[in-house]
């Protein structure tokens, strides 16, 4: 990975981290309401994966989707405005945190239904294949979703039709308050690839370069018409499931994983390789913080949608 790309990835990881921290603050202030699921700790997955994608590639996201949007290039202002329930938000405050769509940017939305995005990704992948446009779909889901029937129907059909889709399983070990040994009877979700006759990978999801390389190979494979890949990224979320559910995880487990935080880890690697200096890093952080100040400001200044507009956007 060249210097420019590395720095770009670090920048995006900061954006996600700081965005999430900002939304936590705004939630506590009552400026963001509703369900809010944070991606902190898992940044390497979205960033590594989306960095392999072209602008017109598609991303199918989840309830924990801010990271995917940012990594795919979404505008922080419009995202923040959406979360704050403003009419300038991506979905005009109709969707909120779990439903940020931007078709032009290839963002096909988060999903309030766990496993609800997997079948949709079949369609966007088919769309690319149908037009022969080379467009690939990155389909994110987490280990909890891997227990849903939609996982099975989707991987089966994607394999049959050699659809250009990459399945990225974000295994953060917990689904709400349910530990993985309550949902998965085997070691790795990635190993289920064999049930569909497709390649399966199990990787360290906190290593952004590893994620990049693995997804890149899968994206190339998909673009070449060779069909889907299933990639399981082992990772962890630093915070509880969402803002209204307390943490139920053993604190030492959380501490252990915080030590593997993908951001300091990547920073250290870049510093070690002298790809970047501490000052440069500080500068990027400062810039991202400014972006978030602007985003917050943009949200605050934007209007909430007028009640008279409520039916707008229903029918095409």
């Amino acid at each position, binding site marked *: 990975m060249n210097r420019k790309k590395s720095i770009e990835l670090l920048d995006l990881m900061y954006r996600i981290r700081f965005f999430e921290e900002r939304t936590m603050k705004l939630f506590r202030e009552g400026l963001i309401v509703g369900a809010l699921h944070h991606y902190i700790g898992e940044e390497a997955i979205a960033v590594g994966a989306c960095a392999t994608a072209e602008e017109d590639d*598609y991303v*199918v996201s989840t309830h924990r989707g801010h990271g995917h949007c940012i990594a795919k290039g979404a505008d922080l202002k419009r995202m923040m405005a959406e979360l704050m329930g403003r009419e300038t*938000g*991506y*979905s*005009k*405050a*109709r*969707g909120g945190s779990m*439903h940020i*769509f*931007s*078709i032009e940017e290839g963002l*096909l*939305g988060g*999903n*309030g*239904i766990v496993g*609800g995005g*997997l*079948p*949709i*990704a*079949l*369609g*966007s*992948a*088919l*769309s*690319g294949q*149908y*037009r022969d446009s080379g467009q690939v*779909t990155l389909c994110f889901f987490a280990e909890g979703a891997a227990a849903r*029937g*939609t996982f099975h*129907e*989707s991987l*089966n*059909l994607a394999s*049959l*039709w050699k659809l250009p889709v990459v399945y990225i399983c974000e295994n953060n070990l917990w689904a709400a308050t349910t530990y993985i040994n309550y949902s998965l009877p085997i070691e790795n979700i990635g190993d289920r690839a064999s049930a569909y006759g497709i390649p399966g990978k199990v990787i360290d999801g906190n290593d952004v370069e590893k994620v990049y390389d693995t997804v890149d190979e899968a994206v190339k494979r998909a673009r070449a018409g060779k069909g889907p890949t299933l990639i399981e990224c082992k990772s962890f979320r630093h915070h509880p499931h969402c803002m209204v559910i307390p943490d139920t995880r053993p604190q030492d487990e959380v501490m252990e994983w915080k030590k593997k935080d993908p951001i300091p880890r990547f920073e250290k690697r870049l510093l070690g390789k002298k790809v970047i200096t501490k000052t440069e890093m500080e500068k990027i952080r400062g810039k991202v913080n400014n972006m978030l100040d602007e985003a917050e400001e943009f949200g605050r200044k934007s209007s909430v949608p007028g009640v008279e507009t409520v039916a*707008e*956007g*229903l*029918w*095409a």
Partner: protein
Amino acid sequence: MRELTYLDALNEALREEMERDENVFLIGEDIGSFGGVFGVEKGLWEKFGEKRVRQTPISEDAIVGTAVGAAMTGLRPVAEIMYIDFITCCMDQVVNQAAKLRYMSGGNLKMPLVIRAQGGSGTAEAAQHSQSLEAWFVHTPGLKVVMPATVYDAKGLLKTAIRDDNPVIFLEHRLLYNMKDNVPEGEWTVPFGKAEVKQEGKDITIVATSLMIHKALEAAKELAGNISIEVIDPKTLVPLDIDTILESVKKTSRLLVVHEAPTIAGVGAEIVRQVVEKAFDYLDGAPRVLGGKSIPMPFAPTLEKACTPQKEDIIKFVKEMV
């Protein structure tokens, strides 16, 4: 004019729309070389190939999900759910995804998607193959709901459905598939939200859907001379042409809604609700609904018949009401 079956009409609509717009494609079970278990897709696989006539495994969630994702990204899928009963296997994709995504995206995307299915009873296939579920979809914001009762409408409404940029639930009745009618050559479409007065009358208005239109017309014929019945086919339940119904009720002062789905919490109740709200003072008696019994459809043909409105039931109701 030439004679077509309801099945032919659907087939023609699909063929013409696929010819007209290469973004239209079909997805469903057994729709490939066999042409669909009822034959609606006959010949289309041969003509358009596997790219556009996509036979799937038995994976209803994947079928509708594929259609949803494709519709969001520029294609115009027509998905087939073999029996409407099986839509229970993919309600999330229909209700939480297809119906809601456009609104949830703030109008950011379009969802030009048709889900075709056939339903109803009358073939002794028992409770899991005999349902009429339109009320669920009418109750779900974001879906259009269409129920063609004639050969002409089957073709014209399906073409309209395919050209619509919103998700459309298109409900056929398998007892209508072999019904024949003389219809024009060439192409036509039938607009959504426009009911048709199938027969004029002055004593009572019957609003009936799908197969029940034909039973209502038979009943009207049998009572002709004694009771003058106005028969209306709403054709689309969302959007619903309540104005045509109201106009008729204002004239006849009486309303009977007939449908095959259970009476309880069915679409008939909704039509009654709207009519009493908007034309209460015109009514000379209580509007009523004649629907199916609230019983899972029994297998035995006699019992099946007893659960579904028959011509005789319509006549009985009309006589009680007028």
